[in-house]
């Protein structure tokens, strides 16, 4: 079907000349499609700077310093460089300006063997309400935590029960109508690390994450 061009005696020579003249243009268009202007930048984190692995074609680079950057001008070609805060503002200003507010956590504790918040926790509830009021489309995630007394499964259920109870309390206190979800983290995220089966009141807490 695709006979070599030289055997095609029926192509008018004028058209052939045109095709020859257009060929470099076609190559340019192809090159334009393949060329990329990609930039990936690692930012300093608030707590710590993490790392980003960039894989393009067979090549991989790890960015692990603040403002470390990788440029990809065509797939499979990764150039490392370092950028600056000013350059980043220039290239990513609107995306950075649109970042949602960072989620914030509050912790509530109960008086022993009661459904009553401690007096300190009542103050915290006021802070939670203020935080909700200043956020667009606010959400609350109520996350129960336990100490390490009991099995993992038992503590999952217990942490969920504590979170449900706090949800009821917050509703009673007239929390503004926002999306509330409830989670139980069990003993996975202790405030104070302990060995298994050690009672620790500071780990028996309920976290209110506002976002």
């Amino acid at each position, binding site marked *: 079907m695709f006979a070599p061009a030289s055997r095609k005696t029926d192509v008018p020579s004028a058209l052939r000349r045109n095709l020859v003249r257009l060929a470099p243009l076609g190559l340019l268009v192809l090159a334009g499609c393949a060329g990329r202007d*990609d930039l*990936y*930048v690692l930012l300093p984190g608030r707590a710590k700077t993490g790392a980003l692995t960039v894989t393009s074609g067979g090549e991989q680079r790890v960015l692990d310093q603040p403002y470390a950057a990788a440029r990809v001008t065509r797939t499979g070609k990764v150039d490392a460089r370092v950028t600056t805060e000013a350059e980043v503002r220039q290239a990513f200003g609107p995306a*950075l300006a*649109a970042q949602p507010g960072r989620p914030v956590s509050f912790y509530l504790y109960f008086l022993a063997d009661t459904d009553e918040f401690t007096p300190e926790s009542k103050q915290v509830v006021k802070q939670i309400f203020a935080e909700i009021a200043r956020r667009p489309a606010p959400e609350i995630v109520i996350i129960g935590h336990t100490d390490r007394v009991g099995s993992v499964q038992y503590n999952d259920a217990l942490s969920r029960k504590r979170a449900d109870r706090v949800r009821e309390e917050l509703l009673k206190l007239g929390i503004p109508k926002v999306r509330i979800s409830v989670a139980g983290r069990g003993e996975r995220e202790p405030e104070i690390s302990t060995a298994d089966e050690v009672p620790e009141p500071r780990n028996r807490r309920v976290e209110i*994450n506002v976002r």
Partner: protein
Amino acid sequence: MRSVLISLALPIVLTLGAASAEAAEDAGHVKVSNGIVQIERSGQRLPAPVGSVVHQGDLVITGADGSVGITFRDNSLLSVGPDSVLSIDRFVFDSTTHQGTFESSLKQGTLAVVSGKLAKQSPDAMTVKTPAAILGVRGTEFLVRTGQSKD
């Protein structure tokens, strides 16, 4: 306005509901929305004001003056600048174990990311793809720009 949105959304919810419960679950919510911002879902484009829900499978699209910030269920924060297209390919998050997957693709434009609980729990949980590369996230803040070169 709300009833208009609901009547627009209802047929989509019904279609999705038949496909998969996981896909219909909220992945995140729009917290910041400037200029033209749209979500493409099941072939339909909807405006995405503050409070809009983002699902797995959604395409987030911004106009020349648009930008949008989304908070995901694992507290990942993704915000995109103007003339951008971001695909939420996969979002699965277990709020008890923090296990799951967050895969997104920036097709064009700019993206700022603050990773959340998924990336903190396991270093392979979160990836961002561009047409030229795959970015593996090791719990961090980073920026992505992708597009064809102008020359």
